[in-house]
């Protein structure tokens, strides 16, 4: 089984739908420890993404992912724009002109995206950010693929790890972003960026982790 261009297109659509459905929830999370706009921003960004997709649906996976990235950079408005923008742009660069990805390719692509986020945001784990969901997710995917797991199982494990990572942000003190201005008061709240990251990885799992 491989990750085809079609399931990448499905993934982007599913991510947009999930972020739209959860827009208010994400905004509420962001209201607790941020500037109360994460859900609105991500919804806006992915609406712009969906508008651009028809223009690239015949292109290679790299071009599709880069188009997602550029749309997010331009339209999200908050820090999630440059961060998720870089995530998708780096994934696109790693995917190149392929029309389908093997399990190994997928792992390399996700790792490139996560590395991009860490570099752009100058963040590490345990700082209460999107990285706390993305990095465990990418790591779990890599380990599963190395063990020889199929894409379906590997993505399932990746999503489970990302979910645990998202929940782990609750007791963390924020060291990055708007929440870091709250210091101790950021403790006890789930990070909105880690939450949107889980939604995106869940979309990847549900679109590309099932047999065609």
């Amino acid at each position, binding site marked *: 089984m491989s990750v085809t261009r079609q399931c990448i297109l499905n993934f982007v659509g599913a991510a947009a739908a999930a972020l739209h459905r959860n827009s208010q929830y994400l905004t509420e999370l962001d209201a607790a420890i941020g500037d109360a*706009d994460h859900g609105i921003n991500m919804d806006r960004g992915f609406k712009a993404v969906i508008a651009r997709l028809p223009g690239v649906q015949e292109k290679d996976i790299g071009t599709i992912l880069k188009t997602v990235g550029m749309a997010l950079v331009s339209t999200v408005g*908050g820090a999630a724009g*440059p*961060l998720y923008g870089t995530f998708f742009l780096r994934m696109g660069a790693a995917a190149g002109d392929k029309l389908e990805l093997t399990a190994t390719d997928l792992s390399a692509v996700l790792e490139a995206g996560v590395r991009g986020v860490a570099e*752009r945001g100058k963040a590490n784990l345990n700082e209460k950010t999107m990285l706390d969901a993305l990095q465990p997710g990418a790591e779990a995917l890599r380990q599963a693929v190395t063990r020889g797991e199929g894409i379906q199982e590997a993505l399932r494990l990746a999503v489970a790890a990302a979910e645990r990572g998202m929940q782990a942000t609750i007791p963390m003190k924020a060291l990055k972003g708007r929440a870091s201005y709250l210091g101790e008061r950021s403790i006890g709240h789930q990070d909105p960026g880690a939450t949107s990251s889980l939604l995106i990885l869940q979309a990847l799992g549900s679109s590309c982790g099932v047999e065609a």
Partner: protein
Amino acid sequence: MGVLVRQKGNALVASLVLVCHSAKLAEGLRELVEQVARGRVRVFAAGGLDEHTLGSNPDEIRLLLERAENAEGMLVLMDLGSSVLATQMLVDDWPEERRSRIVLCEAALVEGAVAAAAQLAAGSSLEEAVQEARRALQPKVKLLAKDSLPSADALAPDTPSGAALILRVAHPMGLHARPAALFVQTAKRFRSGIRVRHAEREANAKSILEVLALGVNSGADIQLKAEGDDAVEALEALRALVENDFEQTSLTDSQRG
């Protein structure tokens, strides 16, 4: 993108670019900074995702950077978060041969912009303007320094070979007449440059005219800064003089006859 075009008028001065989360903030800040720039520095400001929405618009920031681009360089100041991230992303992708003349400065936005504009308007280089922008909080820190306990920031010297001190002049005459003369005499014993600050005015500690012009009355605080290899000794000597109400030296003088 094409060739850099020299602008008329203030072509020989770096441009100032201000990036904020708010369109209103950008406009207000530009107005404030242009007052300081006195027509000698080009100031460009962008803010908000759009006029009504807080956030960052990388397309607008890119347009700003392109318009501001200048052979003398570009000093960019940002407020926080996505303003910084978006600008960094854009500059990362800037053509390499032109990237070196763009400085993303970590200074405080408002204070840094005002300081940089003042420097550039006076003909300073991009590098000098960056240094001043980084120090731009100092005037406010000093104004807000507590009466009895100088803050650590107020005492922090600006340079490694510098030293700084805050003293209270308790002598009934203040820093006038004989106390002033002794002060200047003491300062002149040292090689370091020594500056005295009082109520936002500054004087050369080795110039009696300048020290007298400060008008330091009894009970007032003065800030001393010394720069040079004997900076610490210089300030110590002046501290001893002032804290002893200029008496010790007076006695010595009269003993000498």
